[in-house]
Structure formats: structure tokens, C-alpha cells
């Protein structure tokens, strides 16, 4: 079983991101489960969401404490939330950032990191506003490329199934992130 934890802020689309991934993974013929840890439902508040992927039906129905990988939609969350808590040793952290992975050496020492400018890509495709872009579909392109938990074809299909608005733009954002995400760097 692969367990991935998403960290974002209300309005960035972390919860929908895990739902899209659950659908996409299922389209690849595997079992999936996504689940949000809601606090209060308000814009800007820290949000955690979870995704499980397995070859057999998933029975465990709890939060994820020791994720295989992390997806961080807003790296500034690190000041509020201990993001890497419980992350497995070889875990990969995918961060929405215009910076290079090596610039996160202090924050995520010992882990493997990839970065993708998901905010910039979302703005380019008019997803959300320039001040608060909806970065979920862009970050998923990076997840597909770096973690390989889903094929890019199924991801695009999943976006078409679960994203009723700006479907083409969201699919294009995922595609661009897939192509432009950085290499994975050991910090």
C-alpha cells in the first residue's frame, strides 16, 4: 500500500486533489481511498488530506501517520504544521514552489525533494485568481511524474471526471506540471 499525505490551505484544492487522484488510480485498475482531515472549513486555514493506493481493497479507515510521500501545496505551512512528521525515510516531498529543491535543505534535511511552480502554472491557465491560485491540478501532474502512482492518461481522465469547471485548462495545467517538475534531489 502507498500512503500519501497532502498539506495545503483552504481554497488551494488539496481535498479535491486527493479525490481526483483516487478516481485516476481507480481508472488505472487499482484500489484507492481519499479522505480529508477537515478542521474548520475556511479559506487559508491549514488543510490535510490523505490518499491510499493498493492492489487490493483498502480496509483501514484512519488518518495517515507514517506517509510514504508528502505533497505540499504551500511550503509556508511549515511554520504552522510539522509537515515531515512521520514521513518514511525514503519518502519524497513534492513542493509547490518556484525555488529549486536544494533551497529546502534546512526545512527538509535528509529527505528527497522535487519542486514544481504549480502556482505559476495555475495562474497561466486562469485557475483561481493570481493572488490565490487553485494549484491542485497542476501539482497532480508533478505527482504523476515523480511518484508514478498514476499514469498521465488516467490523471487527465480523472480530472475530466471530477472537475466540472475549466476542465481543459485544468488538464493542460497538469500536463505542463508533468513536463516541468524538477528532478528529485536528496537533501
Amino acid at each position, binding site marked *: 500500500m502507498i500512503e500519501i499525505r497532502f498539506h495545503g490551505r483552504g481554497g488551494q484544492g488539496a*481535498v479535491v486533489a*486527493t*479525490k481526483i487522484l*483516487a*478516481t485516476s488510480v*481507480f481508472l488505472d485498475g487499482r*484500489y*484507492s*481511498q*481519499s*479522505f*480529508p*482531515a*477537515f478542521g474548520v*472549513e475556511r479559506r487559508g486555514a491549514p488543510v490535510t488530506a490523505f490518499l491510499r493506493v493498493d492492489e487490493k481493497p*483498502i*480496509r*483501514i*479507515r*484512519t*488518518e495517515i*501517520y507514517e506517509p510514504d510521500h508528502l505533497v505540499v501545496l504551500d511550503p509556508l505551512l511549515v511554520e504552522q504544521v510539522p509537515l515531515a512528521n512521520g514521513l518514511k525515510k525514503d519518502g519524497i516531498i513534492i513542493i509547490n514552489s518556484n525555488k529549486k529543491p536544494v533551497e529546502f535543505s534546512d526545512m527538509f534535511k535528509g529527505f528527497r525533494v522535487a519542486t514544481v511552480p504549480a502556482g505559476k502554472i495555475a495562474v497561466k491557465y486562469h485557475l483561481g485568481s493570481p493572488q490565490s491560485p487553485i494549484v491542485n491540478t497542476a501539482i497532480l501532474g508533478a505527482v504523476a511524474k515523480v511518484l508514478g502512482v498514476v499514469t498521465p492518461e488516467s490523471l487527465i481522465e480523472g480530472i475530466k471526471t471530477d472537475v466540472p469547471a475549466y476542465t481543459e485548462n485544468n488538464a493542460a495545467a497538469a500536463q505542463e506540471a508533468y513536463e516541468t517538475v524538477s528532478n528529485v534531489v536528496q537533501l
Partner: protein
Amino acid sequence: MRKVLTGNVAVAYGAMLSDVQVVAAYPITPQTTIIEELATMQADGLVDMDYIRVESEHSAMAACIGASMGGARAFTATCGQGLFLMHEMLHYATGARTPVVLANVNRAAAAPWTIWSDQTDSVSQRETGWIQLYCEGNQEVLDTTIMAFKIAESLRLPAMVVLDAFFLSHTSEPIDIPDREQVRDFLPPFDPGDLWLDPNNPRTFGGITMNDAYMEFRWQIQRDMEKAKAVITEVHEEFARVFGRKYHQVEAYQAEDADVVIVVSGTVASTSRDAIDLLREKGQQVGMVKLKTLRPFPREEIIETLKGKKKVAIIDRNFSPGATGIWAQEIRNALYELPEGDRPLIYGYIAGLGGRDISVKVIESIYQKTLKDNRPDDVDMWIGVNYV
């Protein structure tokens, strides 16, 4: 057809496939997406129903009772505070013998304010005469919603489908959506016989009843609740024949040779299956019993399943202040009649209130404590509490 759906959307599919005719509901987190989805289904022409927007949950249930008395298949959904507000009307639905189906998303009680899961809302309705069906996964949620109409209508008693907040309501997973025509064969339209409010043949029901008759009405409810045990089993069996998925009021998992049996309900049952498998791999003789029905309480089946076991650990995600967890109360009550040699020691645990996670580790620690202690420390034991 298979799709990735949340538990709430699964409820909506269940109601839609059941050709529900009247929905009266009031939004409340984490239930809201059930009635949103049903409204979307109505707008898309997938279900031919009247949608009554009401000003409160009390009115929602009152409208459902009226619709049901008018001969319609009626449905509503709520949770937590909403179910508490409905309480008066829940009793009325039973007394009026209206087979309304209600989906309740388990939400803990305020104050302090919370939207997270525990069973206090539904177990607090234990005495209302509603059939209560608890679910462990989204497939079970969808299937149970369809079965609830069949069970309720054949007994003329209302039925509640119960699912955990967030752990099911907002969790997405692949589930099989039954074929609509197969559901129509399984669940024909509601037939109220001649007991309905027919405008062409006006009469009234439920008027003032003197003390020479009231008790008989109550006795009939009790008679039919006892009958419900056999009806639920029949409906489970028929559902399995048509759709290939079998449900049980009491389901034993790896319990045959177990020294310790953990008794659970809701999503904890699902997580416990993983915990039991892990413990079995380590050579531990542990099993699980999942309870689906709180009302009617499957007393005979419980006695049969737990008779002769050494230790039974009951995990209650609910609590009755001044007493114990509700499932523990019910099981102690049922097992008391066993001769002493066949009567297991009961370890009652309170866990997971207000959405606190009941993880595999928590279940393992409950097993270890039960195995180690020769007798329970107390009538109930609270797990993971920071005592202050």
C-alpha cells in the same frame, strides 16, 4: 458500473436507485453533500421526486411522515444536532407506522462545538423505535440505503442508515453501483395497502387514544421489531442473491478459535479487519465481531456468537454519562442469561469520541490490555484520554 464515490454520494445513489418520491431535508455539515447530490440528481432528471426545503430538521421529519402517510416513499438525511432536533418526530414516525428512511451521518454532540464523528447522536435515538443499520464502508452505505426501504416498508417501521462522519461521509473509494432495473425488481414501489391518507376517502390516523388501547399500539411495535430480525436476515439474503454482496446483523471475523474477541461497529469494523490480520500474523488468537443493527438488537445471534468466549472487548464510539457505552450495555444485558461458565468477561472501552482516530495501534493496544488483565479495571475504560 463502478465509480469512485464518497459515502454521502453513495447514500444519494441509494435513495435515487430506490426511486424515492419525497425528500425533505435541511443542510448540516457533514451531511449536506447527500441532499446536494440528490438535488443535482433531481435537476438532471435522474429521479422523479418532490424536494421539500424546510426550515429545520424537525420540519423535515414532519414532512417525511406526512409524505409517507400519503403513500409516498420518503427520505431525509441529517446528523448530530439535526438528529437531536428531530427527536420528537422520530417517535412520531414510529407510532404513525411510517416507513421513512433517514441517513444519519454520525456527528458528536455540542457543546463544545464539533463536526467530527461519534455515535452519540444515533444511539441517543435508541428508544424511538427506529431500525438502526450501521455501515463500515461506502459500498455497504449504498447497499444498506436500498435495503433499508425494503425492510422499513415490509414492517411499516422507520429505518436509519448510519455512517461515520468524514471516515465515510467524505471518504472516496471505488464502489459498485447496482443496475437500476435490478434494484426496481428487488424493491417494488411502496404499497401502503389501505392504510394511507387518501383524499378521495378521507379519514384520520393517530387521534387521541385512551388507556384501554394505547398499550396495544406499543405492543404491536415491539412485536414487529422482534419480527424485524428475521425480515432483515431475509432481505440480506435476497440482496446477496441478486447483487452478490452479503451483509449480516452480527458478523464474526476470525472469531471461531479466538481467546479475545473485539466487538465493534461502523468504520472501526473495517480498520479492525486489518488489525486482526496483523495480530494473527504475530500468532495472536484474536477475532472480531461486527454489529450492524442496534435496533432491533440481535440478542439471540450475539448470545450464540459470544457464548463460551473467554474475553470480549467492546469498543464504544459513544457514551451514556453516568452509565457505560451503549453497545457494551446491550451486550452485557444479552449475555447475562448465559450460565456462568459460558459467560465471557466483558471489557468495555470508550474510544474515538469527537472524531479522535481509532487507529490500528489503538485497536492493538485494546487487545493487549484485554489479554493481559485478568479482570477489567472498571466497568468502562477510556482510551487515549489526557486526564486533567
